[in-house]
């Protein structure tokens, strides 16, 4: 695997205004989804119609940015049509790549639209060389978005032994479970990323005021109680606070946000191609601010300079940041 000279900045576009904001702020590529269950951010008010994708592709291409369409949920047995149509329309509307998770859909894309570039979604959970080589060999996948379970050292070793590009998350909400293999959300709400494209959906969230504070519930379960002086956060299941051996603790992960802006040189040396910013559910202001900061940092890294100091804490989930699994001490 050859070293890439410049890291490619892959940015979230939950809506057409977010797409324009990302492109204007210097995104090399944007990723987005159609307005249905075919993508893993199937939230009300988000995503693109077919017409909006066409316009978005035109805008991005005008400024030299690429558009990746995420079709990264798992088709329901007996009902593959929405997913197939999404792939067909991605090809017809000029998307530069589709980001796929399901083996059946990867095969469909390979056979039906062989010239449409295929990326492997983080939801496919390809965490090792053998799995990645499989998706490359079988489906011609050109890029793999790596699960957030690997250290930088493990990513470097992986890049030495695979024939495809890798893309890694560098900022935003942090899945602490192996993505695409988590049914926690459906256990509590009946809807999961794999089946419905949602995690801990807002439709199942309730906040209640009690004597001991603000109670945050998902489905039938209390995921947190925020006392005085604590800002109530969103009850994403794996960021909940639980009773662990008699004391309240964030067992899975604290309410933190991933930020690897200080690690870009290391990631470049590890052979990474794409840097992914999470946050299709976030607004234009978030997109502008984060993409601008990472644009500067990526350009600095390409010149061999350290990342300029950027304060992204204000937009970080929970107001705290972590390098996540990239550092082995996280495990």
């Amino acid at each position, binding site marked *: 695997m050859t070293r890439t000279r410049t890291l490619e900045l892959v940015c979230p576009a939950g809506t057409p205004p977010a797409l324009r904001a990302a492109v204007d702020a210097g995104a090399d590529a944007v990723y987005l989804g159609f307005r249905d269950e075919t993508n893993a951010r199937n939230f009300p008010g988000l995503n693109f119609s077919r017409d909006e994708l066409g316009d978005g592709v035109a805008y991005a291409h005008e400024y030299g940015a690429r558009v990746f369409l995420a079709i990264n949920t*798992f*088709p*329901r*047995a*007996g009902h*593959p049509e929405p997913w197939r149509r999404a792939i067909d329309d991605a090809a017809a509307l000029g998307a530069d790549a589709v980001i796929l*998770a*399901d*083996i*059946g*859909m990867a*095969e469909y894309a390979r056979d039906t639209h062989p010239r449409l570039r295929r990326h492997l979604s983080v939801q*496919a*959970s*390809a*965490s*090792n*060389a*053998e*799995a990645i*080589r*499989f*998706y490359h060999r079988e489906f011609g996948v050109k890029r793999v978005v790596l699960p957030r*379970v*690997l250290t930088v050292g493990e990513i470097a*070793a992986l890049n030495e032994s695979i024939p495809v590009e890798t893309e890694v998350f560098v900022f935003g909400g942090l899945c*602490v*479970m*192996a993505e695409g*293999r*988590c*049914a*926690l959300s*459906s*256990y*509590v*709400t*009946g809807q*999961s990323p*794999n*089946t419905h494209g949602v995690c801990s959906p807002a439709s199942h969230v309730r906040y209640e005021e009690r004597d001991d504070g603000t*109670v945050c519930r998902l*489905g*039938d*379960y*209390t*995921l947190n109680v925020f006392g005085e002086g604590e800002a109530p956060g969103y009850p994403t299941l*794996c960021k909940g*606070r*639980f*009773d*662990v*051996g008699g004391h309240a*603790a964030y*067992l*899975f*992960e604290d309410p933190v946000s991933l930020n690897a802006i200080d690690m870009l040189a290391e990631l470049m040396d590890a052979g990474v191609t794409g840097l992914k910013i999470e946050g299709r559910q976030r607004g234009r202001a978030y997109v502008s601010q984060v993409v601008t900061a990472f644009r500067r940092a990526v350009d600095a890294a390409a010149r061999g300079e350290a990342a300029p100091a950027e304060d992204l804490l204000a937009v970080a989930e929970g107001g705290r940041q972590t390098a996540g699994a990239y550092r082995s*001490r*996280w*495990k």
Partner: protein
Amino acid sequence: MTKTPAAKLTLGPVLFNWAPDKWRDFYLRIADEAPVDTVCVGEVVCSKRMSLFEPVLAGVIERLQAAGKEVVLSTLALIMDEKEMNAVRALAAAADFLVEANDIAAAALLDGRPHAIGPFVNVYNEGTLGYLERRGAVRVALPVELDAASIAALAGSADAELEVQAFGRLPLALSARCYHARAHGLHKDACQYVCGDDADGMELRTLDGDAFLAVNGTQTLSYTYGNLVGELAALRTMGVRRFRLSPQDIDMVAVARVFGDVLEGRQTPPAALEALGVLAGGKPFANGFHHGTVGAQLVAASGSAE
């Protein structure tokens, strides 16, 4: 009563970190007494545990085979480095066994020869199922999240034998991070194998004291025991012939007998549910995933009387 083809029982791999003696004795008793057709062995959750029961593994396999059980070798569900990859390669090379792939990497290694796909590989639809079948998958244990409609659609197109987990805590998530170690203020690399303290998983409660999940090292399971004893008949009608019992730290021989009795019409599902409740020591059951709703729920079976 309509005539349905014989159903088979698989005992899934022990997911928890049991001491080698306990692990061995469990399987020896299964070999001698449990009415299961197939027994899965092998570490699925954490590669650090593999060496622990390695010394007793060959003896266990020999006894299970001598008792007429089909032995399946289960592989790691999350493979993150070359050491773990090599462990899976070694298992995949075991030509005399049916090997169960719990990661697509293992399925790739088993390409071209008959193998099983475990519940940690995402088989949600006919496209993926058909693809894996053409690569040699002869048995596919479906993800626990699938509902009845999806299972029926898959069964309608399957050449491989489909397997559905019918008993035991539901595997919900995997991580690189060890939550057992984290709960004890330890790091994964120096975990002191604290997961061994919780033979049935470490029960996690909400801040309001409700039992919620069960932690097993890097794995997160349901607090409830999945239980489809009331749905067996419906599943058989769909064409599912094989049911998985996932080992818990209770009398699994007795659990297997209950399931065997229901499958052979010697016990009714309501009576079986009651018997399993006693065996499970009052742990709540869940079948919500099967009914397309909240996974933690127990939906009353309808029309399942035989």
